[in-house]
């Protein structure tokens, strides 16, 4: 320590007149407190710029080009974006993705809320059981989607699947869950609900735990029943969590790829084609990089627009 201080003193000009200090050393001493945090952040931002920001900006540039295969890209302005509006497959993918998103908001989220309220309520009185349920609901979320898809491929199998075995046992006809264009998307939604309801329940549970018990007790003293307490006390106080769940469900739903890709590959007849699968097909199987970039940007714009609308509506409700 002594030697270090001595060296430091010498390096910083001890014994020299103040005017002879090196200007850079002086600058650093004056500014290091301000700049050091940025130095520590530099590695992250370097990686971010190279691997995230640059591809994002380059994809924006590419979306204005006809860039199919290995030829020289040709500038076509908004041509790719105009094509999106006339492309029936893109519109089908948009429709499917929107249906999945709506199901996430209006089916998955309410189920998650009901589960959370149930776990926290008198229905599950023991703490050990509450933990057990929390763990059970969370398990599908941490299970690999490949495993989930393999499992549900077996469950949905028309001939040997669990669901059809059940239907047959009660005298109903077998259904082509993932094979029929009418049933494929509902089947994928069912798997999505099974996979993601647990994590959303945990969000709601966290929100419920932040509501002081005194409020519920006060409502009970005022003569409010459980249902009224839920609608007039619990639900209004859960608004921030509900908004968070809905916004993240919207954003993630518009990026839906793995589940339908692994379960159906987007078929049959595009019944489960999502925007992300269409982007992948266009970008890699057809190798049309310009159009794929335009699809990517359209996905981002849609998700941003919907999330912004939700935030706006929420703020209006707050007032």
């Amino acid at each position, binding site marked *: 320590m002594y030697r270090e201080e001595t060296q*430091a003193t010498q390096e910083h000009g001890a014994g020299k007149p103040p005017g002879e200090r090196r200007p850079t050393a002086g600058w650093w001493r004056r500014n290091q407190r301000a700049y050091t945090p940025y130095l520590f952040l530099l590695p992250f931002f370097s990686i971010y710029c190279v691997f995230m920001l640059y591809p994002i900006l380059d994809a924006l540039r590419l979306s204005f080009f006809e860039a199919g295969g*290995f030829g020289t890209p040709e500038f076509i302005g908004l041509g790719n974006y105009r094509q999106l509006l006339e492309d029936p497959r893109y519109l089908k993918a948009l429709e499917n993705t929107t249906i999945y998103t709506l199901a996430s908001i209006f089916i998955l989220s309410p189920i998650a809320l009901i589960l959370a309220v149930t776990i926290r309520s008198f229905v599950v009185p023991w703490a050990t059981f509450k933990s057990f349920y929390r763990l059970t609901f969370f398990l599908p979320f941490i299970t690999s989607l490949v495993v989930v898809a*393999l499992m549900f491929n077996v469950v949905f199998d028309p001939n040997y699947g669990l669901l059809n075995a059940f239907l047959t046992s009660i005298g109903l006809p077998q259904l082509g869950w993932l094979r029929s264009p009418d049933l494929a998307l509902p089947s994928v939604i069912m798997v999505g609900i099974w996979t993601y309801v647990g994590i959303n329940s945990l969000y709601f549970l966290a929100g419920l735990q932040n509501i002081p018990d005194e409020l519920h007790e006060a409502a009970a003293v005022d003569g409010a029943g459980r249902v009224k307490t839920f609608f007039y006390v619990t639900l209004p106080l859960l608004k921030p969590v509900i908004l968070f769940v809905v916004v993240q469900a919207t954003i993630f739903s518009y990026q839906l790829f793995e589940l339908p890709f692994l379960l159906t590959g987007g078929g049959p007849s595009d019944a489960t084609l999502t925007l992300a699968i269409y982007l992948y097909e266009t970008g890699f199987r057809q190798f*049309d990089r310009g159009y794929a970039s335009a699809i990517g940007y359209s996905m981002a714009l849609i998700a941003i627009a919907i999330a912004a609308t939700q935030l706006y509506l929420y703020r209006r409700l707050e007032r």
Partner: protein
Amino acid sequence: MRRRLSRREFLKVAGAGVAGAALLGTAGCGGQGDEGQEGGAESLEMWLFSEERAEWIRQVLQSEVWTSEHGDVEVNLRVFPYEQMHDRLQTALVSGRGAPDLADVEISRFSPFIRGDQVPFVPLNDRIGDEIDNVYTPAGTDPWTWEGQIYGLGNELNTCVLAYRQDIMEDAGIQTPFETWDQVIEAGREISTADRKMFAIHDEAFGDHYMMSQSAGTTYFDEQGNYIGDNELSIEAMQFLYDLVYEHEIADIAPVAGDDQWYPPNYRAAFRAERFVAVFGPPWHLAMLPLDVPDQSGLWTVQEFPQGVGEGIPTAQFGGTGQCITVQSEKPDLAWELIRACNLTTEGVLEDFKLRTVYPTYSPAYEDPALQEPSDYFADTRFGELYSSLAPQLVPFNQSPQWAEATETIIRDVITPVMQDRADAAEALRQVRSAIEGG
């Protein structure tokens, strides 16, 4: 006594660490060196999507045909999952760096590489030279050929045949081999019950229609790569498949799964349970029978496709993988030597036959007794003799930049609507043209 690390020292160490990592990273980005790992030996890098194919190449690398001249060459085989390998290859080739010397390209993933005005593979025409006369080109080179240039060489002679349960036909008093599809349909009516059908027809894959189209005498594209899949022969093939299921009721929709639309475990289980007693397809498809239905050994037999659909060509081809040299390779000659050893030598192709029972596209290999051995499973059929006699009758494979798009459209707009919803085959196939040309 522990000495505290000063901020200056920390920054120095951190800076050195970052600089070191950057240097290492830069070194890692330096492309493939010309030298091998040791002693300055030459090296090659090859990307594949199948561990079995990698094993074949390992066997070739250990054989005399390679070691006699190139024993000191290091060949780095990198196996990726199917989609990932092709995606990475496209990305590396379009970015201009990072591609291997050579790569396996599956038949249905070749079309993106010929979109645009540059093809990122090295033409092999001059290197193949007169050996082209020894190759069954519809399977060996056509799928990787565009505008007269051969960009890849495939080893699999995927000649399709009809296979059926001989014992069940004999028990029903049905005369075989079948000469016409009408006889097959008649036999199917004899043996089909509620729990047993002759065939399993796919409703989310184009293979059945593609095979029958070739047997009818047509294919999806002409020599210039223009879509012709809506011609009368193609429509007849589609109608034939529809009729097998709904008119003659001798076929059911194939029990497949979302993650495997061709022959997943439940499809194979259906053959084990004798729900289906006949199948038509290439060798790799029939190979599921000895593998997954071993207890039916000796009960199956095979024959060429019967007459009666279109021109009645007795075979078709389906599937295949070619080896291509990338334009980024700095050692195309050495890469070609590996392709040649694997595909154009009897020793090389026999290694694949021993390992995967692949019948080769290299015709001189059929003189080897190993390829003429009878199959115990398929009632002593001599597949080598059968396939090599059918190979010259294969319909040429016409590649197109729109191949992937067309086959996906055919599945989506023709196969599934016709086989599931009984849509009109002719109308559905004609709509594909507008979808492809519009796209």
